[in-house]
């Protein structure tokens, strides 16, 4: 009797320890709390309501990109073209407005462009057999080149109808609520639902975790990978539409650097670059954490040119943290196995 209660006790403790150390979403939450505490003591203005509100509002574009990136990372790929795709889709929506198309048609055109770029990535990877890294790097080149040639380097302007101010979040929807917040929530529900509760989502995890295993189980690996890239292309398009509204003009370099932020946010949120692991909630918290860190250094007065260094540093730290959590979880599991076999520690 005594031994069973002892065993039960031990497994409960182990379970809590395992969860805290292993669950990446809890890890990023801890990091976020840490940043907030750090800020609360040094810079009370950080915890100011309007600062926090701005911070979350500013993180939305990266958040949407990070959610799309998470889908690709889970399925074992990586999408380096996500930032330039966003810019290209912003350009498409703006140009379509200038061309005289109605708003919904302009938005549809942007989404179609995003899906098309995703499909292109998927085809380069599955049909030509290019590595994900190379294919999407090439797509980054194509997309930004097309946008430059098309705009001749001059930002697209003159498309800002009142609705676009709402889409960009410049005009709030109701009270403090902005449309980008609603859109980010919708994207989260859709992508989170797909990853967690659908066949397609299971196939994303399966392909990312073991391509041969998935193939032998009858999963059509190429199609699944293509789907993942289409989702990241669509996420880029959604982000691009918001950016077109928020920025009020579309310069050719609108998307520069966003791929790094998207990858960083996804990885902070626990997505593994080796595939098979990642959560939408993690990407959301990751994007907010990233925005909080950037916000903090802005408040401290560090020049904004240092931002990229900070983002790079956070990316390295996040990958290390993921690896440490994997090692710790392995050890915990090993110890648990020993305990079950009845070996005293």
């Amino acid at each position, binding site marked *: 009797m005594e031994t069973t209660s002892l065993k039960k006790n031990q497994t409960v403790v182990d379970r809590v320890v395992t969860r805290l150390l292993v669950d990446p979403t809890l890890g990023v939450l801890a990091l976020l709390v840490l940043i907030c505490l750090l800020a609360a003591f040094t810079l009370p203005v950080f915890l100011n309501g309007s600062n926090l509100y701005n911070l979350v509002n500013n993180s939305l574009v990266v958040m949407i990109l990070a959610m799309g990136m998470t889908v690709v990372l889970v399925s074992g790929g990586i999408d380096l073209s996500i930032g330039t795709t966003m810019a290209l889709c912003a350009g498409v929506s703006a140009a379509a407005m200038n061309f005289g198309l109605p708003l919904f048609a302009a938005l549809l055109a942007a989404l179609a462009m995003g899906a098309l770029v995703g499909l292109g990535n998927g085809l380069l990877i599955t049909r030509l057999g290019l590595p994900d890294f190379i294919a999407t790097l090439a797509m980054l080149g194509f997309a930004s080149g097309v946008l430059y040639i098309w705009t001749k380097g001059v930002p697209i302007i003159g498309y800002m109808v009142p609705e676009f101010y709402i889409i960009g979040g410049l005009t709030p929807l109701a009270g403090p609520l902005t449309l980008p917040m609603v859109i980010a929530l919708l994207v989260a529900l859709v992508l989170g639902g797909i990853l967690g*509760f659908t066949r397609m989502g*299971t196939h994303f*995890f399966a392909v990312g*975790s*073991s391509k041969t295993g998935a193939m*032998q189980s*009858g*999963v059509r690996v190429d199609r699944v990978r293509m789907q993942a890239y289409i989702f990241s292309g669509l996420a880029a398009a959604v982000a691009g539409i918001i950016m077109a509204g928020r920025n009020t003009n579309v310069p050719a370099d609108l998307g520069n650097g966003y791929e790094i932020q998207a990858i960083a946010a996804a990885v902070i949120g626990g997505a593994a670059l080796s595939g098979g*692991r990642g959560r939408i909630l993690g990407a959301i918290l990751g994007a907010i954490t990233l925005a909080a860190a950037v916000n903090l250094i802005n408040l401290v007065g560090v020049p904004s040119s240092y931002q990229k260094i900070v983002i790079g540093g956070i990316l390295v730290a996040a990958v290390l943290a993921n690896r440490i959590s994997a090692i710790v979880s392995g050890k915990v599991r090993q110890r648990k196995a020993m305990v079950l076999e009845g070996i005293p520690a």
Partner: protein
Amino acid sequence: MTERPAPDADGFLLNVQGISKHYQGVTALDAVGLQVRPAEIHALLGGNGAGKSTLINILSGLTSPDSGTIMLSGNRLELRRPTDALGSGINTIHQELSLVPALTTLDNIFLGREVNARFLGLNVRLDRRHMEDRVRSLASEFGLTEEDLKLPVGEFGALKKRVVEIVKALAFDTRLLILDEPTSGLEEEERLNLFEHMRRLRGKGVSLIWVTHHLEELFGLADTATVFRDGRLVGTVEVPDTSVDDLLGMMFGIAAGEFGSTATAAVVTEAEESREEVLRLTDVNRSYILRDISLTVHKGEVLGIAGLAGAGRTELARAIMGIDKISSGTVHLKGKAVKFSDSSAAYQKGLAMLPEDRKQLGILPELSVSENISISSLDRVSWLGFVLKGRDEVSQAESYRQRLGIKTADVREKIRNLSGGNQQKAIVARCLNTNPDLLIFDEPTQGIDVSAKVEVHNLIREFVANGGAAIVIASEIGELVELSHRVIIMKKGRLVGSVDHVPHALVSGQFEAVKNRILAMSAGRTES
């Protein structure tokens, strides 16, 4: 669960005729046939490169044949992709596990065949509760609990993974189950357990195609055996009417006596007393893994390490090589205390190891055979330890190729194009090339065929006869007994016993007795 599958007019469930397959000019299969009756265990045998894997890949829809027909219950099948095979009721348990580590048992079982429920008017939501209901009784029949269903399979051991694969195959209408070396990586008792599962399947009317290298496993279990050699069909025999020697003859086309089967293999000579000590471990510990290990290995001696999976055998080898840190205890090499910070230090001091998992840890698949051989001691084939002398590297590899009988047309060939047994020999050559005092073999014959196995055994014997010392780790106790002078037994990180003078015992005909004694100690029953 499933209705009995109907045989065709000739009484066969599966009738494969005239299947040929060529890969870039190489004939992998040359018009082979295979006939499987309903509810039988049909062994598919052959050496490495006989074409078994190719046929299995064809039957599971992973590759298409160039010609030939596949009939199941009298209907012709066109298997273009894995779903076609699964849909026809042909399930395959591949040697390289086809489970996805990140998914739970339940999601793995239904992977590719998920059950959906309606959500918001769309038929897209996974119905995990329904899926669980469907497999619960089947899973518990095979010893999987409800909690197991919700755990990622990456956390399970080898046997449990295989059981998950069996359940995955049976959860659907399986008429033919193909098992490709299902016992590799399993312990003795786990094998017996698996064999019980196989008998139960046959009892349910499922036919099994079973690929194995362990011929002694067949008797009492398999009904029929079909033998392939070099991509051709040699013949089909009833297992009760045949013998290991006959099957060996069919597989390799030569008299079985040349292979030195178990009865004649006790050719190890007892090493002389008062030998020079090569390695001594005193009270070596590694937290949770190794406890108070003390042992010595002498010149000219093979020390066997027995134990079940998880007993700490591989971990001990890794600790000796400096790959894992030891928390307390001392290691003496030829009388001097040593402490290795990593394995390259161990290599420099005269230790070498043949790692357990050849594909993942051993070979460098994209490099040539000669580069694979010289990689651990490149200073032998380079100027000032810096600039490689390609010609020396090749001629060195050439001499090993002849000495060890590595079958390759050219030592500059990429090693991944060689068969498993020849890859293993190349890795042995790599270890020998470092001129070690002590060589550790971790599962030296896993996944290689009988003839290659005997050759690897001979290499180990030759190495110690020339003054080397060796540690051999093997799950197959028979193999351990044949090779070792002494066997020590590990359990849960401790040494729990040892058997000395093994060759003496073999000469006096006590092979089975020694084997059973070791088995009893590894399983934890008390020794008299």
